[in-house]
């Protein structure tokens, strides 16, 4: 359940570490964001210099930047069509551009299988999909 003021971990190498959700796109008023939803975020903190070097200069993200992101993990459990209920220990997202492509080049951590529809590139980059 991601909505205004929710803090999410960023699990790519775009440079951002922690972002704050500002808006959930494509949903009704006061409808919370779930895994696979697109959100607008404000970058609250960035990662150290080591990881920044890996991302391209164009994609480098600064503190205070407003970006789009896709939710890849939520702490709030959700149910799949076969009845399986999935829950992660944190809320996480991957920064994307307006076209829906990831800003970073690597993804560190687990992503949810629901991203297969629409964000196949992120699923391909992810080391583990649950």
């Amino acid at each position: 359940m991601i909505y205004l003021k929710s803090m999410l971990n960023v699990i790519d190498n775009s440079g951002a570490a922690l972002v704050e959700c500002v808006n959930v796109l494509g949903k009704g008023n006061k409808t919370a964001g779930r895994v696979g939803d697109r959100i607008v975020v404000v970058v609250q903190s960035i990662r150290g210099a080591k990881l920044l070097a890996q991302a391209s200069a164009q994609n480098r993200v600064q503190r205070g930047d407003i970006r789009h992101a896709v939710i890849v993990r939520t702490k709030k459990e959700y149910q799949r069509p076969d009845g399986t209920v999935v829950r992660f220990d944190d809320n996480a997202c991957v920064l994307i551009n307006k076209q829906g492509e990831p800003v970073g080049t690597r993804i560190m951590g687990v992503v949810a299988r629901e991203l297969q529809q629409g964000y196949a590139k992120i699923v391909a980059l992810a080391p583990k999909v649950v």
Partner: protein
Amino acid sequence: MSRLLLRQPARGISVTENCLSALRSATVATLKDSRQVPNAGYQLNRKLTKTPIKIHHPAPCLLPKGSEPKQLLEQKLISELDPTGWRRQLFQRSSPLALRAGDVVKVLFNSETNQTFVGTIMAIRRRGVDTSVRLRSEVGQLGVEMSVKVYSTSVKAFEFVSRALKKARRAKLYYLRPDEKKRK
């Protein structure tokens, strides 16, 4: 009895309980089977209303008398979803191979990607055909929990990996979740 019918209002055609009981009491012979509705298949012609009221025959009872439909359905579903009985062997309390909280189990899903999930059993929620098992796994440094429906057709198999080192003193191991206060 006719006086009772005449007093009924013209609109809102409905055969009320009072009306039916009045009809029943009006019949000459008393009926042995209370499920029989008198005048079923007939039409009441009321002088005040334009359209006649149909009294339908009651629907036939498809189950034997005294049977419990919900239990029968449950048994039917379980025998359909688990014909060989391996799911019952793993999750019924009385079974010798029964899984317990604390055991590590691998779930194999019926998917194209041959999805698997290995985790510790945190809880077994026993609800007949709706039985589900909550598994917890640390993927990297992140905890993931998955609640799998035991009788789901999308579950290919449950592989027993290892027994708990020490028998858990609890049925539900929610304490395995990280302490949020400590993390901050």
